[in-house]
């Protein structure tokens, strides 16, 4: 089947999609967007988190056909057109929140969505919002630091 949807503001099309393919597979293998990660492919780890019409979802659990005509935003769309990192991306780099980095794209998409509706989250809010994203390297402390840092910088208009 053919699937057409918008990815990071651009219309995209994939042909010969098998009905069982996930949105994650189509993004990674058919659209050249491997930023969304394939850590568990069963909706437990959050590494493949993208926004579907603005709502964070595990793209491994979304059938490609369900996305027909809809809007998808991935980690590749977070930075500006000029390549300038967004506040949350820069904060992850600066705070040491990235080690192996495999969980990072999913966490960034989830954290970006959190800060969009809650610009100054408490630690409890951050933990709750990111509780669907597994990280095996960091022990999460630097990830908390990064979200706090991004919130602080954004709040200061930096």
């Amino acid at each position, binding site marked *: 089947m053919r699937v057409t949807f918008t990815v990071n503001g651009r219309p995209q099309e994939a042909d010969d999609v098998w009905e069982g393919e996930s949105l994650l597979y189509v993004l990674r293998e058919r659209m050249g967007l491997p930023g969304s990660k394939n850590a568990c492919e*069963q909706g437990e780890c959050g590494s493949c988190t993208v926004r579907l019409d603005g709502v964070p979802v595990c793209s491994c659990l979304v059938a490609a056909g369900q996305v027909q005509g809809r809007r998808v935003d991935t980690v590749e769309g977070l930075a500006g057109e000029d390549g300038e990192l967004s506040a949350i991306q820069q904060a992850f780099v600066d705070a040491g929140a*990235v080690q192996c980095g495999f969980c990072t794209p999913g966490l960034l998409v989830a954290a970006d969505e959190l800060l969009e509706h809650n610009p100054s989250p408490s630690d409890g809010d951050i*933990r*709750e919002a990111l509780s669907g994203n597994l990280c095996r390297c960091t022990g999460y*402390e630097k990830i908390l630091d990064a979200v706090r840092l991004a919130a602080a910088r954004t709040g200061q208009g930096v």
Partner: protein
Amino acid sequence: MGITRTPTSLTQSSATRGGIGESTLRPDGTLKVTGEFAYSSDLWHEDMLWGYTLRSTVAHAAIVSIDTSEALATSGVYAVLTYDDLPTEVKHYGLEIRDTPVLAHGKVRHHGEPVALVAADHPETARRAAAKIRVEYDALPVITDEASATAPDAVLVHEGRDDHHIGHVPHPNIVHRQPIVRGDADRAAERADVVVSGEYVFGMQDQAFLGPESGLAVPAEDGGVDLYVATQWLHSDLRQIAPVLGLPERKVRMTLSGVGGAFGGREDLSMQIHGCLLALRTGKPVKIVYNRFESFFGHVHRHPARLWYEHGATRNGKLTHVRCRIVLDGGAYASASPAVVGNAASLSIGPYVVEDVDIEALALYTNNPPCGAMRGFGAVQACFAYEAQMDKVAAELGMDPVEFRQVNAMEQGTVMPTGQTVDSPAPVAELLRRVKSRPLPPERQWETTEGADVRALPGGLSNTTHGEGVVRGVGYAVGIKNVGFSEGFDDYSTARVRMQVINGEPVATVHTAMAEVGQGGVTVHAQIARSELGVTQVTIQPADTQVGSAGSTSASRQTYMTGGAVKNTCEAVREKVLDLGRRRFGSYHPAWATAELLLEGGKVVTDGGEALADIADVLEDDVVDLELEFRHRPTQAFDLRTGQGNGHVQYSFAAHRAVVEVDTELGLVKVVELACAQDVGKALNPLSVVGQIQGGTTQGLGVAVMEEIVVDPKTALVRNPSFTDYLIPTILDTPTIPVDVLELADEHAPYGLRGIGEAPTLSSTPAVLAAIRQATGLELNRTPVRPEHLTGS
């Protein structure tokens, strides 16, 4: 939920910006936050096929027949391979003992063993074709524990063993056994006023790295293959892969692709040989990516263990003796089991002074999943048990558990059970003092002005309590881990460093085969080059097999070893640069001949700070390019009867304090804070050091309260190969982890540094267990602790 920041007390000394001691940022950070960093599962090649591995559905069985005809006839399938298709006489691989079949032959020895391979034009086509392969099994008795492995009539997991351990093991189903006898434990026991014994069980932990096993094999025109893969040690892979393919090593060109975590789980091969076989058979590039289910079968796990301990002490709190026996389950193949046994035995009594010991550690061959390397191996299991014992003895003596540990703590100069003298700082008592002196989190820390924050309570968002039935406990633990490869292994790393002028500026290029698995080795290499060569621009080349071996990214060794190699080569490059300078400019200034010269800030300077020349002017068009090996001081094998020998290079120490709240009615645990103090010798990158300690601490927390691969004791089948059923800590399960970093230099190591990656994984688990015991009054002799262990139901 307070804020933990990188300690500011760490010294930051570097004349050249971005040098050692600074928290410089990862060079791969931007790529990783934009999604552009290419992990091994992201690789793509025109015309590539997808490989899939058919694995055994039973744990121990003879293979009666394999019928691949229907799979081969499937549209879109390019190849189906079994044992019979292997191209050479070399059909096994292994880290130390080549006992692992590339594809099963005659029988399978564990659940999930690779039996056949398929290459097809779509991953789903490959999976469905593999499902059409008919394998007929004839069940064999299943060996699952020490009793069944060493029974007189036990079936041998491996018949006809000819490895170098078979001569000294008491049974062919024992991979390796290491006793350590020192002093006279029987006589010392007579001096003991209290004797405490216990039996402990450590569950099977998974590394659970997030990036699945994966890689891309591309057949080359010269008949060789280019392999892009995520691994921990390129050259070890190469040594195992090339003979199976029948290719010289130079025709198997390996490049490290992005590695999504490792923690020991990538020390053994996974898809490497399989991908190359399919690529060479089909003449097309082949990509293999495991899903999470397969990943649980695709790598070895942490050895589960049973441990028996007896500790004696005098009334004034001095340990008299320790007797212990540690039985590790190595599963179906040897993997790193011999080294795990060596660590478990030599580190079995922990960081304490005990003159009289009687120690035995061994690893079994069974039909359980193969176990091998995972962060802290051997030492992790022992630490769980000896720290439980230390609390028990302290309780028996009526002593404070921290004070009891401090009374018996080792220090520099202490002699280990192996007879090895600890010849660098061992601040065990001080680490304990530091975690103990931290203020405790406030009582009823879940209370807010708006009521109970359930996220800070046991049960969390399940909203099972608002504080009713919740009891706090506090526990301590400390551990000791060896750094680097031990027991006489020729452990070395190679670094190639080039210095030249590009666009008028001196640039250093560092090339090593070090596997960057997330730890930040690439960051540190650039820092070392800046400090040693006085440049600001450093290029880190991708890791591949075109340069000499860097050894493994394991055993907490890479900053010491490949970092040491980079330092060592940089020093030699610096001498060459200074020689050039002396030739070109020596006649202009006497200091060229008389002073100690350094490279700093792009200049040649004297140790008095006087600038003599720009490095760019010294080099002109010359290129200085050196590749050198670096070795740590040699170690010795442990005597097979007495366990004596200077087996280790360096020791690493960490201590934890755990604060938990336990819902005693439901058996749920909330770890509120897990404070760590660790001696790192020298923090080359303080931000990364703290990140390693927090990450290691969290993996220790996981195996304390949730992580365990459950293997059916009757069938040896794995029951929970998924992140739905094998739980690792989420950000809600993980507490605040304040870190206190000591820097007591080890004069034998580069910059005085100490390998840091593993030590925090040791003491984290027993500290949490101790805290839960204090809260509940229960004995809790196994980890992980599950709710039923706390409620008794």
